[in-house]
């Protein structure tokens, strides 16, 4: 099982290394969203600083939608998903392999988005550990959620529009908890940052459990 997960994850990462879609397309899109927010809020430093946490997670969520779509576009092309299934790979291995690769790509997106936050919004980080832990939990949750819905919509004609429609509402708890944790870490809120991070971890565990249960039916019928 672990070997199969590694095979799928490595294959997706090699594809990303060759095509560099995350670096050349998704990261710039996420940074552009941050810039557009700055324009929309009239480049008001206090307003941008107060909303920086939420704007970060909204921008990264857009990136997750693009990443999940891309992750399953490469499988739909030429019937590659059938190739994996004929290789005897169990559905769970395909799902977790793809989720792991997407999570690593989302971490990359998150790092660039955080850098964009520091540069564009001039925010100051008060708790780096909270930022890192909440960020990793959130990226993993987005990746798992995106992979689940990517598998659900793969091959559908309406996948382009259906994926964000399904993914964004389900990712809302991550958006909410991540924003609250980042607000504390950035010093714009005196809330319990680690409590929100714990909630993020609970959401992540829930997505993992749903993934284990849904992998077979999703990838068997895809």
């Amino acid at each position, binding site marked *: 099982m672990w070997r199969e997960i590694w*095979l799928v994850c490595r*294959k997706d990462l*090699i*594809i990303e290394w*060759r*095509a560099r879609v995350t670096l050349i397309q998704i990261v710039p899109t996420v940074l552009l969203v941050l810039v557009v927010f700055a324009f929309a809020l009239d480049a008001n430093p206090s307003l941008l600083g107060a909303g920086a946490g939420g704007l970060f997670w909204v921008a990264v969520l857009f990136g997750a939608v693009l990443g999940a779509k891309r992750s399953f576009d*490469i499988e739909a*092309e*030429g*019937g*590659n998903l*059938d*190739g*994996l*299934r*004929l*290789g*005897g*790979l169990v559905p769970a291995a395909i799902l977790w392999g793809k989720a792991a690769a997407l999570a690593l790509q989302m971490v990359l997106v998150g790092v660039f988005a955080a850098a964009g936050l520091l540069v564009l919004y001039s925010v100051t980080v008060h708790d780096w550990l909270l930022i890192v832990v909440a960020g990793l939990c959130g990226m993993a949750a987005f990746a798992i959620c995106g992979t689940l819905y990517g598998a659900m919509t793969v091959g559908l004609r309406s996948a382009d529009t259906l994926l964000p429609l399904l993914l964004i509402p389900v990712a809302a708890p991550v958006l909410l908890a991540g924003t609250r944790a980042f607000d504390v870490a950035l010093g714009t809120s005196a809330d319990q940052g680690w409590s929100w991070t714990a909630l993020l971890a609970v959401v992540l565990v829930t997505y993992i459990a749903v993934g284990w249960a849904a992998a077979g039916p999703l990838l*068997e019928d895809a």
Partner: protein
Amino acid sequence: MGAAVAFEGVVALLDRFPALAGVDLSVQDGEMVCLRGPNGAGKSTLLRACAGLVPVRGERAEVLGFDLRAQRRSVRPHVGLLGHRSPLYGDLRVDDQLRHCADVHRAGAPEVAAAIERFALGGRLGEVAIRRLSEGQQRRVALACLTIARPRLWLLDEPHAGLDTSSRDALDELLADAVTAGATVMFATHETGRSGIAAARHVMLSGGRVEPAAPVPQTTGPTDVA
């Protein structure tokens, strides 16, 4: 010698449409079978059903001893399917793709080297992204992956499409070698006039059923229709 494929009254529904409407078919181990029939006859669905990728019902639906009605997933590692489209990752290089196939099917370096040599995929071609290859070259990479997988049952849908003459000859030779090695081959084609096709038992499909009489197409000349 056992039956590689034993179908009796097999039905497969695609979006409620009966793509297979009671197929009776028996294919022996080591046999080469050519599926013929008009467009929409059910050839591709039959191949996908044999690969365990389409749910089936019926009195009997066995492939390589696995009951497809209950063990659809179990048969998959033992079959190789090449459909209309080549199942390749466009952004991977040829050598990446072949290594991925070898890892998935637990094949070693000798199998990969043999496939590279057989389909002339060595040298600088190995470093080219699959997306940049011609259709025929992509087909050769897909066939190389199939060779690396070493399936017991080969299922090919229009395998000659897009290939040049030498690659078609290599494909015929490959299928003949697979049968010699004990594998079973089923392929669907509209072509006539190739020696590899003439050597196969012909099965005619129409309306999702196997026709009782399967006429062998006459060779009308050296031309192949892609």
